[in-house]
């Protein structure tokens, strides 16, 4: 009825393998993009940007990154927080060492540095799998946080041991520091989100993506068709860490402004991003967005409903959030391991035939 593909024919293989083969999807995607770029920046205020849009956009990048590693390549990682910290500290060091260089370049280089660190910690994946790999990445998490805590060079010998973002502009607008404009920070992050989603989608639909998925589904069979497992796994670690590094850099410089590493990039962060992709959907770019949106919106929605409407004490609402997230993880792992993205796909499948399913 609303959602149909009748009369929508692909006449070339290129058309058939595009991201949104169905016209309706394509136009909806253009609409969302248009709204995000041209409408939202004029509607938002500080509160909306800082409590909703920035965390959503930045976590979406991290979730895309982790999804490439876990969802597409099947290598479980609990080092996300540590890799985000690498991105943040790399960005900080670059910002303070080269004040004249554009933030755009700083964030991208922070991503590249994180990619290199990711490859380094991805090396054990060649020998170990599953839980054991997860534990190895856990070591990365704790080691990296320890490193940034203990080596003063990383935080420029500041007395507090924190890093704080100096004021920087992008195209003449303040995006870091004290006097930022909400819409400018939003657009700066949005730019990276669009870039990340575009690159991730293209990589996952082509031959690199198939190599990753082959490794995920059956590594022996992958090897027999000519996939070099070493290269495939390490590229997955590199690309994944690249995105996670970008998100860490943005998280520090744009969103928080000042960071204490153990608090912000601790193990909770690793789990949070992992929960996002589990709830959103493993092996789906859309799922990364859905999961990030869900876990960013949930506390806000609970606060509005619980505290503002029902008048419950805040601590109960905060605990309720943990209960709900925990419960959802269990429900999704048992009932729908492919997450919200799969629910969305099933809904679309049903809608194709609705209201006459036979």
């Amino acid at each position, binding site marked *: 009825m609303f959602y149909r593909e009748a009369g929508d024919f692909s006449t070339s293989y290129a058309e058939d393998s595009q991201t949104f083969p169905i016209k309706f999807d394509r136009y909806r995607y253009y609409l969302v993009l248009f709204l995000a770029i041209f409408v939202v920046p004029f509607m938002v205020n500080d509160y909306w940007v800082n409590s909703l849009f920035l965390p959503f956009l930045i976590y979406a990048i991290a979730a895309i990154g982790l999804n490439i590693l876990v969802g597409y390549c099947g290598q479980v990682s609990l080092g996300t927080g540590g890799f985000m910290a690498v991105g943040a500290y790399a960005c900080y060091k670059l910002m303070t060492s080269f004040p004249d260089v554009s933030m755009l370049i700083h964030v991208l280089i922070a991503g590249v540095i994180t990619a290199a660190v990711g490859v380094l910690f991805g090396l054990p994946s060649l020998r170990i799998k599953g839980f054991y790999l997860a534990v190895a990445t856990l070591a990365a998490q704790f080691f990296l946080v320890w490193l940034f805590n203990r080596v003063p060079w990383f935080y420029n010998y500041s007395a507090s041991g924190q890093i704080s973002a100096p004021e920087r502009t992008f195209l003449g607008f303040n995006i870091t520091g004290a006097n930022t404009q909400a819409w400018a920070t939003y657009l700066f992050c949005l730019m990276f989100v669009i870039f990340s989603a575009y690159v991730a989608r293209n990589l996952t639909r*082509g031959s690199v993506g198939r190599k990753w998925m082959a490794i995920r589904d059956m590594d022996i069979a992958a090897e027999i068709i000519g996939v070099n497992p070493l290269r495939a796994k390490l590229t997955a670690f590199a690309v994944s860490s690249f995105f996670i590094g970008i998100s860490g850099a943005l998280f520090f410089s744009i969103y928080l402004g000042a960071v204490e590493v153990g608090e912000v990039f601790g193990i909770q962060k690793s789990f949070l991003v992992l929960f996002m992709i589990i709830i959103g959907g493993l092996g789906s770019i859309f799922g990364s967005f859905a999961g990030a949106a869900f876990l960013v919106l949930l506390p806000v929605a609970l606060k509005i409903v619980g505290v503002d409407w029902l008048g419950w004490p805040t601590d109960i609402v905060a605990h309720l959030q943990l209960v709900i997230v925990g419960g959802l993880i269990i429900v999704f792992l048992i009932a729908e391991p492919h997450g919200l993205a799969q629910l969305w796909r099933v809904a679309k499948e049903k809608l194709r035939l609705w209201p006459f399913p036979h």
Partner: protein
Amino acid sequence: MKDQADGYVTADGRQIGPVVMEMKNITLRFGGVEAIKNISFDIRQGEIRAIIGPNGAGKSSMLNVISGFYVPQEGEVWYKGARRPAMKPFQVAQQGIARTFQNIALFEGMSVLDNVMTGRLTHMETSMFWQSIWKGKAEREETENREVAEKIIDFLEIQAIRKTPVSRLSYGLKKRVELARALAAEPSILLLDEPMAGMNVEEKEDMSRFILDVNDEFGTTIALIEHDMGVVMDLSDRVVVMDYGKKIGDGTPHEVRNNQDVIDAYLGIAHD
């Protein structure tokens, strides 16, 4: 049939070319167990070569030696006129040797099309940078390889399930998809490990037809392991017979069938 140095002509008139792969005195041990004992045989261009033998004869081990999973302790593998050094399986695949498995090894999380496209991976070399941009080089390469994959899909008559996730398919279809994936690589040698195991008669007939057609249309050299003697005798040009890791026969199906050692191995001998 007349044996020549550079090939021979089969009974049905196909020209068989020179030797592509030669196994020379292969011995493979697992600890104290000798799985393969000093076996030599060759595979010629364009022929269907069968390896048969009772359970535990070492057939699958032989195939695993060819595809690089096992490195034999003794002996040499010669491929296309050169001695092949010890290789990882993915390097063997890149040299143009594709295979299927006895118990299906498909990528369950991917669609049939994606599975067949993975067979093209050795032919795709656009760098990650261009792939991330997609438009241009990567898209062109994808389309070219898709055309090859679609040809194989047409050939094996699996067009209708192109976009179906592999996990939803029946056993027989999965076997066919696995063959499609191996064929998509356009291999110079195709190794089939029990392509008909667990199939009913119709599925076996289909599979036999596909194997013959593949050999006929693409001229692919095929080496296969099979238990069903009727199938083997009908399909293959030459047969290697193994028993307890030793080669006990090698020749045309007719020769092998009349070989006393082979008859003994399959029917047993009277111990008196």
